[in-house]
């Protein structure tokens, strides 16, 4: 039987190689992991261009500077007039076709799609961008 002191010597784990490996793993996970949550916003492709929409489709054209054109009128995306318009569309049949002017940033388009999804519209289609 081993003396207690001798047994302790045998069981000692070499800590320096262990911490070397743990540090390497730690560095790997610190550098490669990201904490940003990636989500998505879904839409369908409009079968026709925004200019030739069918009768029951509503057309929204996104202009620069956070404004939209609905039925020939220009309103701001965050205005109450646009909110009232969306409330009016909700629950009624027919889809909404969204098109953006060709130079509007993708961020603004996503903002508008967010707004439409928040209103719980049944179907949102995205048409090709529009050139003036």
């Amino acid at each position, binding site marked *: 039987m081993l003396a207690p002191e001798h047994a302790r010597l045998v069981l000692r784990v070499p800590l320096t190689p262990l911490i070397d490996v743990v540090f390497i*793993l730690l560095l790997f996970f*610190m550098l490669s*992991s990201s*904490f940003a949550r990636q*989500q998505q916003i879904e839409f369908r492709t409009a079968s026709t261009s925004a200019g030739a929409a069918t009768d029951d489709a509503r057309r929204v054209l996104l202009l620069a500077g956070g404004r939209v054109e609905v039925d020939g009128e220009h309103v701001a995306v965050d205005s109450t007039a646009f909110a009232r318009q969306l409330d009016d569309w909700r629950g009624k049949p027919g889809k909404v076709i969204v098109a953006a002017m*060709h130079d509007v*940033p993708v*961020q603004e388009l996503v903002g508008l799609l967010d707004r439409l999804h928040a209103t719980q519209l049944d179907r949102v289609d995205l048409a090709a961008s529009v050139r003036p």
Partner: protein
Amino acid sequence: MSIVAAKKKRRAGSGDDGMIPMINIVFLLLVFFMIAGQITPRDTGVELPASVSEAEIAEQQLAVSIDTDGQVRVDGDPVDGDLVSHLATLVEARGGDPVVVTCRVHRELPAQVLDPVLQAARELRIKRLQIVTEWQP
């Protein structure tokens, strides 16, 4: 034996004692980063648009990314020619399963960069398209 001599002896006998609290903390950090972080391939230079949408990204998907130079990549491979024919071969390889196309687009790019993707989806009759966003409440 004096107290000083006893302390000296203890230090000399166990040089690794100070390591154990450090390893505890390092392990804790390691477990935190392993569990809380997500390992994702780096999109060089693609800043995703911010959104409040909480919908999860589809699992079976064709990933189209467009970086600031306008370079289109499908599942990581750069596409220089026709996007429609490139996507068509990938859709065919999936044997008729419904396809979801996810677009990773830099937030400041103009909306017209999405046009080739929309056109390809229309021609290939892909119904579902997703724009990948970064969740911001």
